[in-house]
């Protein structure tokens, strides 16, 4: 019965994401059709004749009515067709898929970094209010949201690459002296391990650390703030007092009783954190010349390759919806109270 309740909630949550996806598709459709001027003239290029413009208008379906155009757009999306990038000549979906592993590898490592710093910091701050840890936490939280990611990134490059010489040059995923590992997952670090090549693994990880820490620093702040707040609230509740009074060990009270309950609001914050992360990813990729989808979008923006930019926006929005959905399902699975009512 309990399992059924959870399953039903998960299905309900899946249903709730449908309006978001419809909204996203409508917005990206409007954005692709709201190009300044006539899109057909733009796509036809500078040497266009009235006939060629008309031909392009027909081939793009621009001579049809808006609802018809929208249906065509949705039909293309359903087959995974995001249009063709003018700057590279390849389908946008293909371009994005090829670069996605680079961005995901960076984002995941950044997430691991920010969680592994923010959670202990928040817990420590909540268990010792007004101590130096708490003050440190407050400082990091305020500084973290105020620091522009591109600025943090550049100064890490200056300190660790130029001054100290620890870090490799901030250009891409792998130093040019190495060959990229044979592709399995597209994550260079994992592929290198599968290949058994520790040297390439080390090199790929070295390239990855600075951008990941930069990206992680920005998202650390909301996570640490939420952890601190949630832990403070849980720690002041009756069941914690009872657990303490029963003489349970401090670590049992803290981790088994308090932290598991504080985890729920923290999971909710992760949704907002992903929004920050996917946005800042673009900036971090530019700073470190990281060949991910963010760099692709910036290159496309510079040469006015609008199809590619809107494909990127759509892909990121769908990724974000999927991430939020995953978080909500995790929430349902983690929360022992969910599903008990029915």
């Amino acid at each position, binding site marked *: 019965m309990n399992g059924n309740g959870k399953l039903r909630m998960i299905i309900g949550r899946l249903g709730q994401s449908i*309006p*978001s996806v419809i*909204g*996203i598709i*409508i*917005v*990206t459709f*409007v*954005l*692709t059709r*709201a*190009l*300044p001027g006539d899109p057909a003239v733009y796509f036809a290029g500078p040497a266009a004749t009235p006939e060629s413009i008309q031909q392009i208008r027909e081939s793009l379906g621009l001579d049809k009515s808006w609802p018809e155009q929208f249906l065509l757009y949705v039909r293309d999306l359903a087959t995974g067709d995001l249009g063709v990038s003018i700057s590279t000549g390849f389908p946008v979906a293909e371009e994005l898929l090829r670069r996605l592993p680079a961005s995901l590898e960076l984002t995941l490592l950044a997430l691991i970094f920010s969680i592994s710093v923010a959670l202990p910091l928040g817990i420590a701050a909540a268990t010792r209010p007004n101590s130096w840890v708490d003050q440190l936490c407050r400082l990091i939280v*305020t*500084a973290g*949201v*105020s*620091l*522009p*990611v*591109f*600025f943090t990134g*550049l*100064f890490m*490059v*200056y300190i660790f*690459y*130029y001054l100290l010489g620890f870090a490799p*040059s*901030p250009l891409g995923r792998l130093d040019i002296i190495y060959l990229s590992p044979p592709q399995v997952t597209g994550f260079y670090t994992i592929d290198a391990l599968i290949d058994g090549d520790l040297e390439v693994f080390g090199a790929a990880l070295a390239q990855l650390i600075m951008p990941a820490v930069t990206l992680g620093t920005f998202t650390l702040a909301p996570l640490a703030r939420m952890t601190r*707040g949630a832990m403070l609230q849980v720690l002041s509740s009756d069941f914690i007092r009872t657990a303490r009074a029963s003489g349970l060990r401090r670590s049992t009270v803290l981790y088994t009783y308090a932290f598991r309950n504080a985890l729920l609001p923290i999971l909710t914050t992760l949704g907002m954190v*992903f*929004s*920050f*992360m*996917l*946005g*800042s990813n*673009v*900036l971090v990729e*530019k*700073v470190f010349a990281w060949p991910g989808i963010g760099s692709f*979008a*910036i290159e496309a*923006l*510079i040469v006015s390759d*609008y199809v590619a*930019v*809107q494909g*990127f*926006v759509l892909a*990121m*929005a769908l990724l*974000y*919806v999927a991430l939020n959905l995953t978080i909500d399902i995790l929430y349902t699975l983690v929360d022992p109270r969910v599903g008990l009512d029915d």
Partner: protein
Amino acid sequence: MNEFFKHLKYVLTENPVTLIAGGLFMTLVVIAVFGPVLVPYDPLASNAALTLKPPSWEHWFGTDQLGRDVFSRVLIATRLDLAIAVSAVAISFIVGSVLGSLAGFFGGWTDRIVGRLTDTIMAFPLFVLAMGIVAAMGNTVENIVYATAIINLPFYARVARTEVNVRRNADFVLAARLAGNSSLRLLATQIYPNMLPPMMVQISLNMGWAILNAAGLSFIGLGVRPPTAEWGIMVAEGAGYIVSGEWWLALFPGAALMLAVFCFNLLGDGLRDLIDPRRRT
């Protein structure tokens, strides 16, 4: 009113950080208003003999690749950066608070439509949506403002909706209704002014984020064009010189940006203490 000033004095003296943030804010405003009078050099004048000089007595923040004075450029940029953020926040405040109040006051279909609209905006990673909007509407400074305004809209609409909703049936509103006021008049004269204090906190917290966003957009080459002095684009121009050790090109505009954002965030926290002492952290 006297009570208010007592409380203001209490908040400022209790937390010196708020006082510092207030001072910083005033400095920023002065620089933004009087910037052109304060700068020691013409921010656009290049000087081939003085390229990439480190900070010195003559040029406090050094000179850039064209020999322009970085200090003057950072100072001049304050006006543009604040102007972009202020206009974006003003637009999202006005549109967001009106939409949110209507949704909170009338409920039903109005509420559903406004809710759907804000949810759709929030379904995007916000910075990415801003990129898409600027790409679609054209690469100009005005469009940076509109894009920043659109992505901030949901926050105002949500706060306004909640604030109006809790006051919709308050006694003073019912009394005013009984006195024969129309619904819209009630909303405009009785409820709307009462939700301004919580909205002020939202504005201050939002300003920092708006500045960061606008600077981020110009960092990736949208909106502001060189040679205009703007913090984001100055960091972008200086980025290439970091690897060869010319740190001052990017550090100073970046630090100015950080300081401005920091100032608004602290001010927002201080304002929240002032307006709602219960929510202090």
